């Protein structure tokens, strides 16, 4: 019996697959390409427009300067992307970033251990590692709140936003650490390397950003973890039944987002050679904007690192361009808002079922005659 029944169905599917494959090869849909590559085309448009408006915009040195600005919130965006892919949101990254800078600044001043009557000056690498651990810790609190205690991500991370900022203010009493240079005597110099030095002519901050982005891209595309992130965001129930450790994945994305924020905080305070408790205020919103402009869906499951990078560059190159041509900062804010709304608008066009488009595109094709009737 089984031979007979097997013969029928595959014939149908083979037929349909070869048919659609041949159509797809010939298809070229300009609107679709523009829509899917919108962040890329937007970036090109921004570069062209500002280059025409200002002679200093189009130069290697300006691009590098702008890139080191982009690196700061780009780092936040990449971490944010992971969280958003699982269907969550991390509002605490700006505060975590500020807190990370303060923690680094605090350690650079020397940690006095009163019981031993001495002051410890940790070397810069230790400062960096400990700061990242602190970022991971904040992320872990978020992750545990969201995945185990089922606190809505928006609320949980809003809470840590305030707590982290408060802790940063408490640690400094509202003041700023201005001396981050260290002292050769204590062997803790070199913090400014992150923000000022260049390797092969590229600022270190930008290289760190690139490395984090590539690592993240790799994790999302080539590791089980990446697949789990997309699956948890797409349909957590189904993912769980397929054996995806959804809770663990959720904790991890917040931890990674916290680490990204800590790295961003280190780079920023190094660039500024100071660490203030209010650094990074509202940066979480810029980070979210970068992710959204990059085409990710806030409902989870859709988005990628490439898009997020483009989104971050669109924001950075646009806002720096506006500064360069001398647009008032009020107008800058208006422009930023308009770009974000436009991006989300295009996202909803991309992700809604494409009914009208394909219907009108195929009108001219003559359908084959029905085989059975008449």
């Amino acid at each position, binding site marked *: 019996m089984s031979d007979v029944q097997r013969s029928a169905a595959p014939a149908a599917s083979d037929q349909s697959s070869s048919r659609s494959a041949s159509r797809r090869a010939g298809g070229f849909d300009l609107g679709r390409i523009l829509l899917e590559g919108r962040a890329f085309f937007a970036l090109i448009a921004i570069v062209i427009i500002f280059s025409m408006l200002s002679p200093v915009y189009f130069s290697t040195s300006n691009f590098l300067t702008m890139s080191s600005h982009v690196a700061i919130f780009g780092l936040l965006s990449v971490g944010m992307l992971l969280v958003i892919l699982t269907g969550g949101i991390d509002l605490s990254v700006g505060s975590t970033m500020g807190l990370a800078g303060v923690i680094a600044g605090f350690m650079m001043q020397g940690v006095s251990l009163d019981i031993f009557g001495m002051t410890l000056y940790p070397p810069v690498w230790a400062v960096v590692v400990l700061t990242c651990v602190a970022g991971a810790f904040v992320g872990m609190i978020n992750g545990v709140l969201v995945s185990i205690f089922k606190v809505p991500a928006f609320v949980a991370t809003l809470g840590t936003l305030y707590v982290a900022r408060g802790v940063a203010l408490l640690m400094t009493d509202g003041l700023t650490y201005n001396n981050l240079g260290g002292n050769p005597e204590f062997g803790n110099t070199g913090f400014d390397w992150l923000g000022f030095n260049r390797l092969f002519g590229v600022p270190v901050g930008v290289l760190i950003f690139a490395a984090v982005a590539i690592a993240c891209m790799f994790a999302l595309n080539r590791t*089980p973890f990446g*697949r789990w992130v997309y699956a948890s965001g797409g349909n957590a129930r189904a993912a769980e039944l*397929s054996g995806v*450790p959804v809770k663990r994945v959720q904790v991890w994305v917040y931890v990674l987002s916290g680490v990204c924020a800590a790295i961003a905080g280190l780079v920023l305070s190094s660039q500024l050679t100071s660490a203030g408790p209010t650094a990074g205020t509202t940066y979480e919103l810029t980070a979210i904007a970068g992710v959204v402009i990059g085409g990710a869906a806030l409902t989870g499951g859709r988005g990628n690192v490439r898009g997020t990078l483009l989104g971050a560059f669109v924001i950075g190159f646009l806002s720096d361009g506006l500064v360069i041509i001398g647009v008032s900062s009020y107008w800058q804010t208006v422009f930023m808002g308009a770009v974000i709304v436009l991006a989300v608008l295009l996202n909803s066009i991309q992700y809604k079922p494409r009914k009208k488009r394909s219907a009108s595109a195929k009108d001219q094709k003559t*359908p084959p005659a*029905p085989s059975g009737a008449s």
Partner: protein
Amino acid sequence: MSSEESVMDRPTAPEDATGGVVLSARNVSRSFGSVHALKSVNFDIRRGQVTTLFGENGAGKSTLMKILSGVIQPSSGEIVLDGESVSFASTVDAQRHGISIIHQELSLAPNMTVRDNIFMGRELGGPGGVNYAEEARETERLMVELDEPIDPLTLVEDLRLGQQQIVEIARALSVNSRILIMDEPTSALSASEVEVLFRVIADLKSRGVSIVYISHHLEEALTITDHAVVLRDGAMTAYAERCEIDLEWIVRHMVGENFDLGSPPTGHTMGEVALSFEDISVADVAVPERSVVDRLSLSVRAGEIVCIYGLMGAGRTELLECAAGRVSPNGGRIMLEGENISRLSIAERIERGLVLVPEDRQRDGLVQTMAVGENLSLASIGAFTRGLLTSRRREQTVIDDSIRNVHIKTDGGAAGIGSLSGGNQQKVVIGKMLATQPRVVLLDEPSRGIDIGAKAEVFRLLAEGASKGLAVIYSTSEVGECLSVAHRIVVMSRGRISAEFGADVTREEIMAASGESAEG
């Protein structure tokens, strides 16, 4: 058989008498990108009669119905209502013309109550805003008519799949339309609920309502149909009146061959007990004092296929979800090959070879944002991971094998899951779990929406697995399926096993044991 006469030159003038054509599709075509879902189809709906639409998964049935009810627009061709050409801009527009549809995939808002879902978008006005009391009364009346006592204020997400389907039917009935399209309305219902629905359909017919009915339960559909239309690969291949056709005719036109679902595999010896439930109880989510599964014990041996037959709400889903680790039992233990697995996570159970094909594919089976291939490989990521990295090539092999095994009508797996027809989505859920190469597989109503050819193929896969030592528990509300695949049939009713049969049982015996009348 002289049934394949032309339908194109039938009169389309409006007639008040029963049998006149009220709504028809003329040369309707529809493409999705490069896929031609419908190719110049003609289709008539007659007043006061039931027209059934048969066809394989992906034949274009749902697409045609969506066009007739204004969900999507045709690429070409026209829709004729009462002799006049019309075009529906939306479902609301179609509803105004008296056409409503029960979708294949449920379209309820899970966070709202049954009452609010039924009146969504058509809220009854009253002096102080919405007249909730009247809505609740009307909902209750519909529920009585459908013989399913659901409180109008229950949240839809708290209902079982079958009950949700009944709410969906109630919503369509509440519109009082003249043309009612039902796209697989009974896929999650069991025999007695189907009987109730058929009574309702008979009543609607007598009031002059025209009905289009789609189902892969062919025998069931034959009992109510007046006209049968067969679609194949987007084209209409046959039309006939009820008196001219039988089951064999339908299958022959649907898939080109005739075959039956066969009988349970024999000739291999069964091994040790693979999975056993020992005194398992599961509490009801809504009423924790009540048990949906009540101190039940059941075991299945390697190489054995056990069918659990039961009515909706018998506790089958809860029992299987408990084995898979989705819900935890409040009593008893579950042993997998001699090891107590009650405390293991879902992932650990899958690793040990115990998998569940869930009942509700949209909620529990598919990740809608991922492609077909990614869905298929989701449960077996470990199989194509080396060290930290996944291998694209190995993954593609897993995907291609699954597509071939369960006959998914798709193109290499890159398409979005939402672009597949309902039955093909169901095959993805089955294929995903079988791809993990399990030792014990639990299937909860896996034939929901798959066509007869695919069903036979799934049965063949299960039989083949059984002969190699796979243990299978197959939950179904179709007696026919039990008889074609099971070595042993367990009837479940109100959380307990009410009877157990060998493969030589008759249909009547099973139905009697489950507490239904045997005529359905």
